[in-house]
Each structure stands twice: as structure tokens, then as C-alpha cells.
């Protein structure tokens, strides 16, 4: 086990917990969304750390592809959530 | 010799970055902070890139690095202008 493995792996776990806590507890929707994004970043960090094999050794491309997909899906989900929030504001302003 | 030059340039670039960052933290108002940030960092990046370009000794990579510097110069000049303009507008409104 490399030093980088546990440094980045544990940080990924911490980011996941931090994001999850915010997503569950924060009062503001926007911060909850950012919390979910931080959670996602934690998961990505864990995956990329698992893919890492050490300096000079080719890492696992399957996990890299997975994370690449994840980043794009995360941004589209965030965009959909923001559009929903905007519609919610409009409804509340009407009513 | 070239190695020494490259290290010297890189270290002095980092020095400018440090000065810019201290300025960002210590200076009193937005305009002087912007000044510290953009001027010192652009020069710092320029020195850093000159050092890296010497270090690689590859013309293509050196060209790419210079391209990065130019893009950052334009972007930071424009964004500093926009931030300052916004702040100025807000001041004159209130």
C-alpha cells in the first residue's frame, strides 16, 4: 500500500462524509447541492486512488472512464436540480 | 548552466506569486488587492513559464507554455477590469 493510497483514499472518504452531512442537514438548497457535488468528488477521489498503481505505472483506465462519465452525469444532474429550483421559485412567486 | 537559469527563473516566479498572495491578504481595498493579484501573478507566471520552458528544452512544449501564459494574461486582465468596473458601479450607485 502506497502512502498516496491512504492519503488520497482517506481524503475521499472524508469528502464523502462531509458532503453527505451537508446534503442532509444544511438549510439552503444550494449548499445541499454543493454538498452532493462534494460527495461525488469524494467518490471520484476514491475511485481514482484505487486506479492508481504508483509513479510511472499505467493506472487502470476502466475506473478513469467511469469517473469521466460520472463528472458529466453529475453536472447534468446539478443543472436539472437548479432548473427545478428555479421553477420552484417562480411557482412560489406566483402563489 | 541552463538548469541553473531555469531554477533561478522558477524560484523568482514563485517569489512574485508569494508577494501577490501576501498582497491579496494584506492590502486594504479591492482595487489594490486586484492590482497585487493580477500584476504580481502575471509576472510570476511569466517567470515560472520561462523557467519551465528552459527546463524542458523542447521547442513545441515551450511554445505551448507561452500560449498558456498569453491566455492567462488576457483572461486575468479582462477579469480584473470586470471586477473593478462592477465594484466601481456599485460605489457610484450607493
Amino acid at each position: 500500500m502506497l502512502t498516496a493510497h491512504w492519503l488520497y483514499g482517506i481524503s475521499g472518504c472524508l469528502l464523502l462524509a462531509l458532503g453527505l452531512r451537508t446534503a442532509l442537514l444544511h438549510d439552503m438548497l444550494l449548499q445541499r447541492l454543493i454538498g452532493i457535488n462534494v460527495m461525488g468528488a469524494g467518490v471520484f477521489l476514491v475511485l481514482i486512488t484505487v486506479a492508481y498503481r504508483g509513479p510511472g505505472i499505467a493506472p487502470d483506465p476502466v475506473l478513469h472512464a467511469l469517473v469521466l462519465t460520472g463528472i458529466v452525469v453529475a453536472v447534468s444532474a446539478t443543472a436539472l436540480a437548479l432548473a427545478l429550483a428555479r421553477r420552484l421559485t417562480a411557482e412560489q412567486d406566483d402563489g | 548552466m541552463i538548469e541553473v537559469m531555469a531554477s533561478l527563473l522558477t524560484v523568482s516566479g514563485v517569489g512574485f506569486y508569494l508577494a501577490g498572495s501576501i498582497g491579496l491578504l494584506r492590502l486594504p481595498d479591492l482595487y489594490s488587492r486586484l492590482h497585487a493579484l493580477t500584476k504580481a501573478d502575471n509576472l510570476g507566471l511569466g517567470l515560472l513559464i520561462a523557467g519551465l520552458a528552459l527546463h524542458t528544452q523542447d521547442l513545441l512544449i515551450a511554445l505551448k507554455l507561452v500560449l498558456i501564459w498569453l491566455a492567462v494574461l488576457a483572461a486575468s486582465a479582462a477579469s480584473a477590469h470586470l471586477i473593478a468596473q462592477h465594484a466601481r458601479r456599485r460605489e457610484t450607485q450607493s
Partner: protein
Amino acid sequence: MTAMLVLDILLVLSLLSLATAALATNDARRSVILFMAFGLVLALAWGRLLAPDVALAEAAIGAGLSGALLLTAVRDQAHRALRSSRKPVHERGRANLRVTLEWTVTLLCIALAGLLAWALAQAFDRAPKDTLAQAVSANLAISGVSNPVTAVLLNFRAYDTLLELAVLLTAALGIFALGPARPGHRAAGPVFDGLARWLVPALILTAGYLLWVGAHAPGGAFQAGATLAAAAVVLRLAGRRSVGLPTGHTLHVAMVAGVSMFLAVGLGLLVLGRPFLGYPPAWAGGLILLIETAAMLAIAATLVLAFFGGRPTPAPGVAEKTS
């Protein structure tokens, strides 16, 4: 080796402190800006962990586009819905309940992190089972591309990418259904206009380069699509209303371009007696580039729609004929 260790520790500490700062503040704008900085540091971490493809996507999407999306959201709806229905806690009992709840959730999150870290440690203790990575490198020669990540995305696991594009399309349709786009920005001053004038062509060129280079170096449809979308965001901020995004049927075609090109190639191969999306090695490079071009257009259209925040409305009168 110690220099690398110092870099690692610095990166990890900045990641954790930026995330904590972004999530601890109640100021939405501050939170978004800290999150953007977090995304940039994360891109550095991807570079450090030898994942340049992911680093490019993170810098363009995670830090750039999500930041732009979130900042626009802060700007135009700072006041109501985002500060969701927080009920004032008058009663003491409710306040106690909330504190208990917060502690419970925090402890559970810590427990989750610990459990995950323990599982990871177990996994790292064994020698990695590289069967998938080995399969990729063994078959890279017949994949049509030499960048292993592109080979996985567009060839070996093309199903996943097809379904991902379907997810993107679903998100775009959702945004479409939720209402009209927010009004555009007013025309920018000469400085930003001047920047946009050369930045946009440069970004379009970069997108084309990234698309092409993805076959053998870091890059590909995702990074190219994000760069193209960034060009549109710059144009939109500079006051161009439709930023060249087609309206009506052409827009619909652009949105479904990725999925339909994937399906057309897959079904075409079925007709020729190959498995679905099982490219013949001789054609693989060309077919991958074809699919990636369509996917880039679809990704860019989706991300631009996301930045618009809704269905683009036709311009009033004839104001919009240049784009």
C-alpha cells in the same frame, strides 16, 4: 520522494479545507466560489494521480461549467427557493430535536467514512487484481484508438457511454420541460467583448483539437463538448442571446445527436452481422471519431441548455438574425 509527499499533503489539506469552507458558510456566493476553487485543486489531484483525461474534464466541467451554473443560480434566485423552507424553531423541544438530529447524522457520516476507509485499506492490502486493466491493454491494438480511456469509453464499454448520453438527454429534456430560458445578459463593454471575440474562436479550435487528439492522448468527446459549451457561455455572458445554439428542430437534432449516432452505428453493425456496437477493427477508429463528434455536439448542446436554464425562446422581432 519527499517532495512528492509534501505535494500530496498540501493537495489533500487544501482539498479538505476548501470543501469544509465551501460547505460551512451560509453565504451562497462564497460557497460557490470556494467550490470552484475546490474543483481546480481536484483537477491538480487528478493530474498527480496520473489521470490527465479526468483532470481535463474536471477543470472544464467541475470547476468551470458547474461554477458558472451555480453562480447564475445564485444571481437570479438568491432569495427564495434556494433558502428552502426553513421553519423557525421556536419551541425548545424542536431545538433539542434538531441538535440531536445533527449529532446523529454527523456521527453516522463519520461512521460511514470510517467503514469505507476500512474497506479501502482491506482492498489495498491485497495485490490489485488487474484483470480489467490487463484486458484493456491486451486489446488496445484492435480498439481503433491508442488512448486506453477513450478505448474503454467508446469501444469496450460503449454501452455505458450510450446510456450516459441517454442520461444527459433526459436531463436536457427535464430542463426543457421546466420552462423558458432565463433572459440573456446585457451587451458587454468593450473589454469583455474584445476578449470574447478572440476567446470564442480559440475555444472552438481547442474543442476540435481535443476531439481529434482523444484518440491517442488525453482528450475526447466530453472534454471537447465542455470546451464548446464554455465558448457558448462566454458568448452568452457577452450579451449574445442565442449564442449560435440552433432553435426549433435543429436544436432537437443536436440534443439527440449523440444517442442517435450511437444507435445508428450499433444497429448498422447488427445489419452487417456484427454484434451491437462491435466495431470491425479496421473501421473502429473512424466509427469512434464519428460517434465522438456527434456526442460532442450533444454534450455541448445539453450543457449550454443547462446554462440557459430552460427552453430557448425565439428572439422577439428580428433582433436575432446574425447567429
